[in-house]
C-alpha cells in the first residue's frame, strides 16, 4: 500500500496504565488554581481523564466549605491521589490508605521529596515507600529522578508507571534532560511520564516527541495568565508531540537543502 494514502486516523489510540485505558495523554494537577470553578474549567479544557489530588485534614472550623469533589466529579475524571508533603514511607502509606478509603482507588502517585529549593525526588525514601505501598496492594505511579538505575529498580519492584522530572517541580524550566529521558524511555517497559518541569506548550510537545507515554503537569496551567487557554494549549501540544513522535522526524543535516527544485528555473 502506498504509505502516502494510509489513513491518519489510525494513529493514536491512547495508552494503558495498570490495566486501565486512557485516550488523553495529559494528566493535570488540581493545585494552585484561583478557585474551584477555574480548576474545573481548566481540567475540562485540558481534556485530561486523570487528575492528581492531595489528601489533607478537613477544616474543622468550616465544615460547609466547598470541596474539590463538588466541582470535579471523581466519576467523570479519575482522581490520582498523591503523597505530596510526605517525607517517610510510613507517612506515604498512611496518607494513601486514607485516600483509598476516601475514594476507593488503588492507583496512586508516590512522591517523596527532598528539601527546598529543589524538592528533588529522594530516591532512597521513594524506593522504601514504593515497597511499603506495593506490599499494601497499591498500584504505584512513581515520581522519580532521571536516574536509570533507580528507575529500573522501581520498575522491577512493580511500580506501574515511571515518572521522571524534566526540571524541578513548579519551576517551569522545561525539559532540561532530553538525553536522560530518552534513555529512560528506551529502558522502561511500563508507561513513562514526564512529571515535572513543563512551563509552556512547547515543553509538553518536546516531552511527547521524545516518546513519553504521557505528561503530568500542574503549575504551567494553573499559573498561566489565562489558565483555561493554557489548558487547551497543553492538550494540543501533547497531541501534536505524540503525532510528531509517531510520524518520525526528519534527519538533522548540517546545512541547507532547498525545498524547491533547482531545475526548470526561468532565465532571461
Amino acid at each position, binding site marked *: 500500500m502506498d504509505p502516502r494514502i494510509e489513513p491518519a486516523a489510525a494513529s493514536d489510540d491512547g495508552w494503558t496504565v495498570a490495566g486501565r485505558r486512557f485516550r488523553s495523554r495529559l494528566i493535570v494537577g*488540581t493545585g494552585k488554581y484561583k478557585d474551584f470553578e477555574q480548576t474545573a474549567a481548566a481540567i475540562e479544557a485540558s481534556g485530561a481523564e486523570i487528575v492528581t489530588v492531595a489528601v*489533607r*485534614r*478537613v477544616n*474543622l472550623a468550616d465544615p460547609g466549605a466547598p*470541596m474539590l469533589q463538588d466541582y470535579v466529579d471523581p466519576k467523570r475524571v479519575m482522581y490520582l491521589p*498523591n503523597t505530596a508533603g510526605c517525607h517517610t514511607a510510613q507517612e506515604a502509606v498512611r496518607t494513601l490508605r*486514607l485516600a483509598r478509603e*476516601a475514594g476507593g482507588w488503588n492507583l496512586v502517585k508516590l512522591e517523596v521529596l527532598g528539601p527546598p529549593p529543589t524538592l528533588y525526588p529522594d530516591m532512597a525514601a521513594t524506593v522504601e515507600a514504593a515497597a511499603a505501598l506495593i506490599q499494601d496492594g497499591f498500584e504505584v505511579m512513581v515520581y522519580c529522578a532521571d536516574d536509570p538505575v533507580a528507575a529500573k529498580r522501581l520498575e522491577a519492584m512493580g511500580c506501574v508507571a515511571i515518572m521522571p522530572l524534566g526540571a524541578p517541580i513548579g519551576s517551569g524550566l522545561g525539559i532540561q534532560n532530553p538525553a536522560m529521558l530518552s534513555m529512560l524511555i528506551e529502558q522502561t517497559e511500563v508507561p513513562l511520564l514526564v512529571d515535572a518541569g513543563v512551563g509552556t506548550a512547547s515543553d509538553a510537545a518536546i516531552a511527547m516527541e521524545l516518546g513519553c507515554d504521557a505528561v503530568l503537569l500542574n*503549575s504551567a496551567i494553573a499559573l498561566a495568565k489565562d489558565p483555561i487557554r493554557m489548558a487547551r494549549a497543553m492538550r494540543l501540544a501533547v497531541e501534536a508531540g505524540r503525532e510528531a513522535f509517531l510520524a518520525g522526524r526528519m534527519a538533522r543535516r548540517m546545512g541547507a537543502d532547498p525545498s524547491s527544485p533547482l531545475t526548470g528555473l526561468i532565465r532571461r
Partner: protein
Amino acid sequence: MMETMLSLTVNGEARTLAGPTSVAALLAGLGFDARKVAVERNEAIVPRSAYGQTWLAPGDALEIVHFIGGG
C-alpha cells in the same frame, strides 16, 4: 447520673464529647458528609461501612481528611 465525657483529639485539636459517640455521630456533629471524607483512628483506617459501629474511646487520636487540589 453523670454523662460520660470523652476527651480525644481530632486533627490535632483537643475535643471533649458527650459519650458514648460513634464515628458516624462525630462526623455528623462536626457537620461533615461521611461520603466525602476518610477517617483514621489511632493510625488505623476506619472503613466507611464501620462508622456507625465504631465507638470512640478516651484518648483516641482521630484524623479526618478529604481530597484537595494538588499536583
